[in-house]
């Protein structure tokens, strides 16, 4: 009998996770205030024993705000030149990412990072690939809208134009009036609505979820079950960084009592023997300027990971096979060119990154398990689809 089966049907996720997550499951009552509209939404949608995201009380998730946010998410009027919307880099069929190694902004400028999947973004303890303090979706939305280095949606300095565009549209007049009855159309209202909608991008219907939360023993193939045991086992150690309900340790739920800020250097680069990453993106160090933060990034969720190629913060792994190569080797070897170096020798890489004596069968089983994290229903969910179509 697998380790999982003995735990079903109650809170199986707790077993797989870190010590802090165990605390979150069984520890003291949460100190944060509840958010009635968010609680109601998640109660309506999620399975009863599926952990709920934490939503600040100041960010209600009313149906009206969700509807407004969905219209905004899919609206190219949110870009300066009218060519891109949030969806341009976060497409439903690709689990809300874009299939590119590096994102391309509305003016054609290449980003230095890969678009993150928005799957279960409501659970993220921090947002973007590497920020220690950016944790609220409304605040984060300012970055793609108004950021300039690089340009994404390209709205910097054009907030008056944006509010004019929205205010002139009869659809928005009604949507804003319903979502924010006592407020004028504002940047704050726009980003609050975007946050409300993004929290509805939820993955909880994968084959893995059917096993873990509904007790459906037949949900996973034999190979995927073996892969799951490898994933959550000490040989592969995947779960240390990709644990919790959201397959990322940087997760915050309604039950969390601690704010965990977790970033990891996985040994992708080692330009100088001291662990240096390319100057184009040095991870958390780019913000904190701490040498020890070189190459540290937040572990992204692995839900729908089969759909989100290419992989890593810079899209430098084309396939899940390449990703497994990296982790099984214990760091990536780049033999030539400007980024040459052996990540396995990086002094900054996480202690969980180490060479693994993997068999072909184990590799195949792990891949099968990762594919069992695909939530087909999310990809076709009309509640998440473009409302303007």
């Amino acid at each position, binding site marked *: 009998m697998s380790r999982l089966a003995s735990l079903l049907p109650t809170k199986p996720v707790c077993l797989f996770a870190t010590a802090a997550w165990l605390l979150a499951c069984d520890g003291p009552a949460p100190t944060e205030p509840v958010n009635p509209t968010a609680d109601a939404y998640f109660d309506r949608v999620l399975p009863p024993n599926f952990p709920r995201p934490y939503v600040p009380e100041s960010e209600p998730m009313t149906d009206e705000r969700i509807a407004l946010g969905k219209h905004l998410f899919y609206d190219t009027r949110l870009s300066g030149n009218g060519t891109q919307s949030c969806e341009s880099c976060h497409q439903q069929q690709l689990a809300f990412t874009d299939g590119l190694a590096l994102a391309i902004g509305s003016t054609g400028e290449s980003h230095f990072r890969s678009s993150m999947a928005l799957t279960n973004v409501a659970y993220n303890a*921090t947002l*973007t690939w590497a920020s220690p303090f950016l944790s609220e979706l409304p605040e984060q939305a*300012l970055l793609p809208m108004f950021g300039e280095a690089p340009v994404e949606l390209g709205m*910097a*300095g054009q*907030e008056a134009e944006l509010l004019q565009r929205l205010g002139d549209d009869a659809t928005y007049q009604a949507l804003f009036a319903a979502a924010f009855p006592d407020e004028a159309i504002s940047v704050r209202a726009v*980003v*609050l609505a975007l946050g409300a909608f993004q929290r509805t991008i939820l993955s909880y219907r994968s084959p893995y979820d059917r096993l873990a939360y509904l007790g459906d023993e037949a949900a996973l193939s034999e190979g995927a079950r073996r892969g799951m045991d490898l994933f959550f086992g000490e040989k592969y150690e995947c779960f240390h960084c990709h644990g919790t309900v959201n397959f990322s340790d940087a997760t915050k739920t309604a039950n969390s009592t601690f704010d965990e800020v977790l970033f990891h250097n996985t040994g992708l680069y080692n330009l100088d023997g001291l662990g240096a990453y390319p*100057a184009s993106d040095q991870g958390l160090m780019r913000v904190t*300027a701490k040498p020890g933060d070189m190459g540290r990034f937040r572990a992204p969720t692995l839900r729908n990971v089969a759909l989100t190629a290419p992989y890593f913060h810079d899209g430098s792994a084309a396939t899940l096979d390449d990703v497994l190569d990296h982790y099984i080797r214990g760091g990536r070897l780049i033999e030539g060119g400007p980024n040459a170096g052996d990540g396995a020798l990086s002094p900054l890489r996480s202690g969980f990154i180490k060479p693994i004596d993997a068999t072909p069968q184990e590799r195949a089983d792990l891949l099968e398990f990762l594919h069992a994290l695909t939530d087909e229903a999310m990809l076709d969910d009309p509640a998440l689809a473009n409302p303007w179509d």
Partner: protein
Amino acid sequence: MTQLPRTWRHAALATTSVLALSVAACGDNAHHHDHDEPTPDAPPAGPQAVSLRFAAAVGDEPATCDQVFTGFGPNADISLQFQDLRFYVHDIEFIDAQGGSEPLAMDTVSPWQNEGVALLDFEDQSGLCANGTTDLRSIVTGTRAAGTYTGLRFTLGVPFEQNHQDASLAAAPLNLTSLFWNWQGGYKFARIDTSVEPVNPGDPRPVFNFHLGSTGCDGSPAGGVTACTADNLAVIELTNFDVEADQVVIDYRELVGAIDLAVNGGGPPGCMSGTTDPECPAPFANLGLAMGDNSPAMTAFVAAPVSP
């Protein structure tokens, strides 16, 4: 003031308003110095309303969006146009002959001044300043204790407490999206962007963006930004400054010096406060901001008489 007895000065420093009275009284009424209180016949002198004037210049010319400025770079052959020219100031103080200082109690003036932070705005959306605003702002108003002051000190930037708030909730003047700097969790303290004339007509125009702001910021999801290793708040001091006659001028020629504005030696074009950006040490030094171990002299701001 120099001849004031120590006891008198100490009494006068007890409160701002008393100092205001004392400074007004001391000029012509030396025989009152042995009293702790001004005599009834001294002219009343409460806090003074002050309008501190700023200007932006390129050498002797006003810096405007619709004009081409020439003579930049190591060979003085680079021409440029402004694309933006805005900056925040706070902690304005007037310095007296003894080196003491009195703060400017900043007025609240929507949308330019709020909670001690003022925006100065020298772009009017004309020319290449397309992402600016049509409004201009070249003064900071407030009140100070009456007195005789010989110098001025202010800080370029946004105070830490206001710099790291949620920008989507901030009141003017901290609600301009072109001055947001969210990936650093703060604001651009100064945004002075120029577009450089290409060597060959028709080639892409290089840009030289100067974005000053705090870097090396750390924090937590719950607490937000808790500290920045490089706050990059430039304390600007002008030792000879008469608020009645003078204005504070930022001279772009002094800010960038002789660096080659047409070549990006690394990092983003221009200087976005990156510690390893080769275009940053020069403008930082000219603002008196150390980058590394140097302790540079501030030259970018000067006091100049207001033109008649």
